[in-house]
């Protein structure tokens, strides 16, 4: 795989990403139209059997599955995800209105998590076995062992309800961003910490680092001039992949906890209201974002890797 030229890698990776996205839409279609009964799903919870039967004929759900898929996919390509059964307007704009909030939250959280995990992880790996290393190690393993939504609830209980420092729900300004972003940063910063620590630790066991240490170079010099140069790509990539993980799940539960008006909150509301078009659209839009970010990180890693090799 590494014999590929960077250009070809980019093309292959984009093609793979598109393939995965296509697979996601097929899975979503099969889930909705093959396994489930969309007429029931799209009906209000209290609909009568006759109303559901009418809707089935109206939506053309009595046609063969492959015909429905072609139809469905054709609409997707034109950006038509159907109409919200709750708000009576197209699903796509509803999702696109929520997306910036999710991006704002996750980007802020990622910066915090990257700083927290990147710096502490590097120091912990550099001084492996030290008291700092042991303390942060246990704290981070603990941080990745608790669900992020629970961390959010605890923060609400402490920071907002007790000392009333920050708003706990909705979006009313930058203060609203603090608690959800910190919540996400705790768990994801912990994961970044563990990965960065082990990368730095591995670097420190290499002969050049041992030599640098044994000939008495000051720690700061070893860290900046030698170790960081070799771990920086790994650290950057780790942070990128963590963003993919965050977007792929944890962020949505945290949004629900803080009533943050993002895609996750929208999805859960749509799920509870049986608003299938919006749910479907949200999954595809968020999924496209996850797949695209994943591809970008992979490509970035490959390009940085190649440049380092030439230098």
């Amino acid at each position: 795989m590494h014999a590929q030229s960077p250009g070809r890698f980019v093309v292959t990776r984009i093609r793979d990403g598109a393939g995965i996205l296509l697979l996601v839409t097929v899975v979503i279609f099969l889930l909705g139209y093959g396994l489930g009964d969309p007429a029931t799903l799209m009906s209000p919870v209290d609909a009568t059997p006759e109303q559901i039967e009418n809707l089935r004929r109206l939506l053309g759900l009595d046609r063969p599955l492959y015909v429905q898929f072609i139809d469905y996919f054709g609409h997707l390509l034109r950006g038509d995800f159907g109409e919200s059964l709750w708000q009576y307007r197209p699903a796509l704009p509803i999702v696109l209105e929520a997306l910036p909030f999710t991006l704002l939250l996750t980007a802020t959280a990622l910066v915090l998590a990257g700083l927290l995990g990147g710096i502490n992880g590097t120091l912990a790996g550099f001084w492996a076995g030290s008291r700092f290393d042991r303390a942060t190690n246990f704290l981070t393993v603990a941080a990745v062992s608790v669900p992020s939504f629970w961390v959010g609830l605890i923060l609400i209980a402490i920071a907002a309800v007790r000392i009333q420092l920050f708003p706990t729900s909705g979006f009313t300004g930058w203060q609203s961003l603090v608690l959800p972003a910190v919540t996400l940063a705790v768990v994801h910063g912990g994961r970044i910490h563990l990965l960065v620590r082990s990368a730095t630790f591995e670097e420190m066991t290499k002969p050049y680092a041992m030599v640098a240490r044994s000939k008495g170079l000051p720690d700061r010099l070893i860290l900046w001039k030698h170790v960081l140069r070799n771990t920086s790509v790994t650290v950057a990539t780790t942070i990128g992949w963590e963003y993919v993980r965050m977007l792929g799940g944890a962020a949505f539960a945290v949004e629900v906890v803080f009533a943050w008006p993002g895609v996750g909150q929208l999805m859960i509301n749509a799920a509870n209201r049986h608003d299938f078009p919006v749910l479907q659209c949200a999954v595809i839009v968020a999924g496209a974002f996850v797949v695209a970010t994943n591809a970008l990180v992979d490509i970035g890693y490959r390009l940085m890797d190649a440049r380092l090799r030439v230098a």
Partner: protein
Amino acid sequence: MLDARLGRIEDVEEARALARQGTLSRAGDLFWPAVIVALVLLALTGDALAPYSPTAQDVGARLLPPFATSGRGFHLLGTDPLGRDLLSTMIAGTRLSLFIGATATFIGLVIGVGLGMAAGYYGGAVDRLVMRLAEAQTAMPMFLVAILFLVVLGPSVFNVIVLLPALVWPAFARLVRAETLRLRETLYVEAAVATGCTGPQILWAHILPNVAPRVAVLTVIEVGHVMLAEAGLSFLGIGVQPPDVTWGLLIARGRPYLAVAWWLVTMPGVLLGLAVLAFNMLARRFEVASGSAA
């Protein structure tokens, strides 16, 4: 090798001490396995150990804080809005939380180990298919697909157990495939081929026992992941449904009372975190002992 990996003198000495005494000698090493054993015992014998019935309501004893006493007696962790004893409901939740974690991980393990061995041993088209599938699965935003899946099929314990293995099998498949590729070249597998053993025989009798230790370590890690995923789904209302109870569901149930009864959210989360932490610490201990990670 060992000395080269460890940067500091006290670490080398610690490692030597560990090597001298065997790896499970220190009291600290037994702590986390003990936590897991305790939780499993709690799950198996919960009804007998719980101070009260997990469903017994008592409106006179609503929202009592930890260490409170009601007409019925002492409530170590307090009570919920219907006067149910929190400790008792948490013990009741232990069973399903651990059961889902263990069952879903085991199903994922069977699928992943089977496909991984087949991919590594037979190579070629089988290998490409399995690895592509694992790759697509990893790159797919599974949590989103999970939400849709559970909304369409309806949230239930059964559907959660069907869904969660999808999250963990690729990790098993990748690990086992790599190990199988290595083992395939060993002399004893070659000897087995020479004496006329069939592929399945070799996989069962020679490959499987040799991948088992590393699979065991991965299992310990993945049980924790699965339990967190289940808690997340149940918290969002698309996983386990009442009257069934898991820790994640208890957190969701306590959420509306966060401002007046902090213990309802805090305690189940602490127990869940403790369980996952125990699995994570155990896995790290294995890794350190086998020298595969720092």
